[in-house]
C-alpha cells in the first residue's frame, strides 16, 4: 500500500518540475550527423548539375515552340483518329486475346507452382528451415524485375514467347508464393493441432481445412497477379518479341511509324486494362474486408 502511495507521489513530482527535459538541448531536434550531411551534399551537387545542364543543352535546329505544337498535333492524330491500314478491328482484338492468353498461361503456371511453394513457405505448415529457405529464394526472385528474368531466359530460349512465358511465370511464382503463404498462415496453429490430434494427416488437413478457409483470398490474389501479368504481357510483346498486341504496338511505332495505329492499339489496351482493373478493385475490396 505504501509503495503505491509513493509511486503516486512520484507522478506528481514529475509534473511539477518537468525534469524529463533537463540537460537536453531541444533546438537540435535533427542533429547534423554524418549521413544527413552526406545527403545534403549530394542534393546540392545534383541541383548544380541540373542547372548547368539546362543552360548548356544543345538545341541544334529545334525550334522549341514548334516542337511543342508538333507533339500536340501528333497526340491529336493518335487519340482522335485511331485507325489501322494493316489490320481490322477484329484482327487487333485477336492480338489482344493472344496477349491475354500469355497473361493467363503465366498466371496459371505461377499459381499451380506457387500453391505448393506457398504451403511449404507457411510457418504453420512446414518446418522453420524449409519456410526460411523458400521465403529467401522467393524474395530474391521478386527483387529482380520481370523483364530481366525474361531477358535472362532469352539467353537459353531465344527472344520470343518461350522466354516470356518462362520469365513471367518465374516472377508470378514468387509473387503468389508470398501472397498464398500469408493467406495460409492466417489459419491458427491450434486448429491444425486439433485436426492432427484427430488422426488427420498433412495432405488431408491442407485440402480440407487450409485451402478451403483461404480460398477466396487465393482467388483474389491470383486475379490481381493476372492483371499485373496482362500489363507485363503487353510490355513483353514489345520488348521481347513475344507476339500479341504489344508486338503490334512495337511494329507500329518503331517500324511503320503509323500514329493512327498506335492510337487504335492504345485504346484497345486501355479498354481491357480498365475492365480488369474494375474486377480487381472489387477483389481488393474483399481482401481488405478480411477480419
Amino acid at each position: 500500500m505504501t509503495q503505491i502511495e509513493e509511486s503516486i507521489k512520484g507522478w506528481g513530482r514529475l509534473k511539477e518540475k518537468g525534469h524529463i527535459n533537463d540537460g537536453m538541448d531541444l533546438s537540435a531536434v535533427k542533429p547534423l550527423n554524418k549521413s544527413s550531411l552526406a545527403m545534403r551534399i549530394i542534393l546540392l551537387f545534383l541541383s548544380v548539375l541540373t542547372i548547368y545542364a539546362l543552360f548548356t543543352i544543345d538545341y541544334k535546329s529545334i525550334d522549341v515552340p514548334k516542337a511543342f505544337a508538333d507533339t500536340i498535333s501528333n497526340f491529336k492524330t493518335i487519340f482522335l483518329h485511331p485507325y489501322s491500314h494493316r489490320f481490322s478491328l477484329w484482327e487487333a482484338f485477336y492480338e489482344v486475346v493472344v496477349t491475354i492468353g500469355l497473361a493467363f498461361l503465366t498466371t496459371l503456371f505461377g499459381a499451380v507452382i506457387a500453391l505448393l511453394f506457398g504451403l511449404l513457405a507457411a510457418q504453420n505448415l512446414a518446418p522453420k528451415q524449409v519456410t526460411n529457405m523458400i521465403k529467401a529464394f522467393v524474395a530474391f526472385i521478386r527483387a529482380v524485375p520481370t523483364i530481366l528474368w525474361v531477358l535472362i531466359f532469352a539467353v537459353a530460349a531465344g527472344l520470343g514467347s518461350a522466354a516470356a512465358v518462362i520469365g513471367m511465370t518465374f516472377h508470378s511464382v514468387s509473387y503468389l508464393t508470398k501472397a498464398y503463404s500469408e493467406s495460409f498462415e492466417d489459419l491458427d496453429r491450434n486448429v491444425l493441432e486439433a485436426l492432427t490430434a484427430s488422426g488427420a494427416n498433412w495432405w488431408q488437413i491442407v485440402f480440407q481445412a487450409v485451402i478451403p478457409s483461404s480460398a477466396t483470398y487465393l482467388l483474389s490474389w491470383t486475379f490481381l497477379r493476372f492483371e499485373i501479368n496482362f500489363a507485363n504481357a503487353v510490355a513483353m510483346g514489345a520488348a521481347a518479341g513475344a507476339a500479341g498486341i504489344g508486338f503490334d504496338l512495337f511494329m507500329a511505332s518503331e517500324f511503320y511509324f503509323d500514329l493512327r495505329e498506335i492510337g487504335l492499339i492504345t485504346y484497345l489496351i486501355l479498354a481491357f486494362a480498365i475492365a480488369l482493373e474494375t474486377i480487381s478493385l472489387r477483389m481488393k475490396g474483399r481482401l481488405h474486408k478480411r477480419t
Partner: protein
Amino acid sequence: MALLELKNVTKYYNNATPALSEVSFEVREGEFVSVIGPSGAGKSTLLRCINRMIEVSGGEIYFDGVIASKLRKRDLRKLRTKIGMIFQHYNLVDRLTVLENVLHGRLGYKSTLAGVLGRYSEEEKKQALEIIKLLGLTDQVYKRCDQLSGGQKQRVGIARALVQNPKMILCDEPIASLDPNASKIIMDHLRNISREMGITLVVNLHQFNVALKYSDRIIGVNKGMVVFDGAPEDLSAEQISDIYGSESGDLIIEPGEKNAS
C-alpha cells in the same frame, strides 16, 4: 482392466526442471477423471503426452492394450482416431460450416486421397447429423462457425470429437472461456457422454468446484507431479491447498460446498 495407464511419465521441454516428473496413474473404461492444478503445473502437457501431440522424455503410456509411447506413424494415426480432443479455444475452422467441421473428425479413418477429396459416405454424414442433433445444434448445421457463440462452438468441438467414435476424449479446459450458463451446458453434455455412451473422459479444469461436482475421480497436479489421486469426497481442504500451493489458502472454498450445488 485399465483403458489408459501412465507409468513414470516424464517430460523435459529444454531446461533442467521437468514439466512432468514420474507421473503414474490408471484410468478405467468409462471413468470421468478431472485433472486440476495451478497454472503451469503441466496439465496441458500431460494431456498432450497421452495422444502423443508431445513426445514424452521418459516412461510409458499404455492405451487400449498397446504401448502408445512406442507407436510408429501409421499406428499412431490409428491411435489418435480412438482419442478425441476438445480445447479451450474450440480450434474450429472458422470459415467452414458446422457440418464441415464436424466431419473433419472422420478424416483419420480415411485414405489420404479420400480425405483430400473430402469424400464422406452417406453413413458418416447421417452419423454427423445425429450427433449435431444430440448436441442441440440442428438449426446451425449450415452456419459458418465464426457466426456461433462460444458455447455453440464448444458443442461443435464435442461433436467433432464424438464423430470419431472415440474410446476416450481429452478435454483441455473446455469451459475456461465460457460463462456459467454455457459452462453448465457443456459439462452436462460431457457427463452424458460419459454416462450414456460409456466414453472415458480426462478433463483439465481450472474450477475445482466444477471438478468436484462432475467427476468420478480427481487427479491433482502441482509442478509436474501428481499430489492427489482419489475420489472427490476424499479431497480435504488441506489437500486442495497442497495442489494449488499454500498461498492460495484463503481462496479455497470448503469441500463440503460441493453438495450444495
